[in-house]
């Protein structure tokens, strides 16, 4: 199957903000504004691979304290204890709420870890201009963009329960430092995915 022409071959450039396709001379001034919406036109997201790696590594580093440190302090009728994300999942599992334990496991453990692996894979293969499974890699990237922000779930749960359970002397729930790191992991991996330019996957096809 012959592949459809790409913008560069036709002397065109597309605006990433409004989608307008404009005439563009290769090697000409890169940062002309889009004639319709005024956004600076870029053939590819600037420093895509470097920035995506930087955010991904930052996320990976923050993931260590996020999973080791407590995210929440629970004081139930005088019984105070810190709990980590994994601890919270185990609690639900033991209480018989398997479905909820599964949902939190997916959002807090499976999704962030899958994101590290998938983005790492995409970055490494794209950097080497690999022509392996391009269509599948493109689909994988769209999947990461689609599910990435669901990991904010734990941050929101901690926020809601600590706002609610404020009974002086009786019971109290407070957020702990781990949730800050966890939130940063989600934001960093989202920024990493946003900075990665999926068009680079297909650039390997050009000789």
């Amino acid at each position, binding site marked *: 199957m012959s592949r459809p022409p790409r913008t560069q071959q036709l002397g*065109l450039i597309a605006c990433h903000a409004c989608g307008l396709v404009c005439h563009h001379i290769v090697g000409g001034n890169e940062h002309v504004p889009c004639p319709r919406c005024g956004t600076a036109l870029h053939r590819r997201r600037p420093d895509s691979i470097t920035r995506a790696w930087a955010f991904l590594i930052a996320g990976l580093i923050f993931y260590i304290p996020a999973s080791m440190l407590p995210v929440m302090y629970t004081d139930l009728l005088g019984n105070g204890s810190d709990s980590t994300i994994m601890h919270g999942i185990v609690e639900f599992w033991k209480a018989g709420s398997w479905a909820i334990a599964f949902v939190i496991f997916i959002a807090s453990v499976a999704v962030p870890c899958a994101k590290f692996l998938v983005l790492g894979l995409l970055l490494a293969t794209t950097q080497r201009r690999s022509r392996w499974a391009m269509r599948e890699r493109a689909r994988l990237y769209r999947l990461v963009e689609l599910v990435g922000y669901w990991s904010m779930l734990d941050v929101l*749960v901690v926020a809601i329960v600590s706002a609610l359970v404020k009974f002086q002397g009786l019971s109290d729930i407070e957020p702990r430092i781990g949730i800050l790191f966890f939130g940063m992991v989600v934001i960093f991996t989202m920024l990493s995915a946003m900075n990665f330019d999926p068009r680079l*996957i297909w650039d390997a096809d050009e000789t």
Partner: protein
Amino acid sequence: MQTFSALVACEHCDSVFRRYALAPREVARCKQCQAVLYRDSRLDVNQWLALTIAAAIVFVMANTCPVIRISLQGVHSETTLWQSAVALAHGATTPIAVPTALSIIVVPFMQITLLVWVLAFARTGQRAPGFARAMRMLVVLRPWSMIEVGLLGILVAIIKLSSFLQVAPGPGAWATAALLVLTTLTARRDIHWLWEWTDPARAGGTEA
């Protein structure tokens, strides 16, 4: 600069295609990477505006009414979305309160406000003052709206607390559910075609 409104470039692989008119509910996909190029819009501008105004009303309810009520030994407590975000702003976790408030309150608020502004003018084929800036802003805001995660958070919190407390969803929770549906219909929509819709050349306007 010469522009080509009859062409569309795939955002995911940079392939160029000629636009064609879509059948109802049809989705145009890239032949190279299968990404969505553009969709048939089932809503016209008036319907879109109406749903966005509905979203604005529901947004106010979701943010003023408590989302969860609990009681323990006769003592009651309740929280709104805003109070939940503020609960993180104590001690060491303070920095994460900002993105939390942004993703479940501020970003949806800005999306709804900008859309109402843009659509109210687009009804008559006009571009609102600051149209380009508003449209660019909507593109930037889109990935940071997390109403759906907020709603799931409310549900998980209810289940989490129900083991040792009396818990009931408040009116804010129902409003958040309605807001989720309405923002999916309005703010998650492809906005590119509003540029063509309000094109002065097409409408015979006078803007340069």
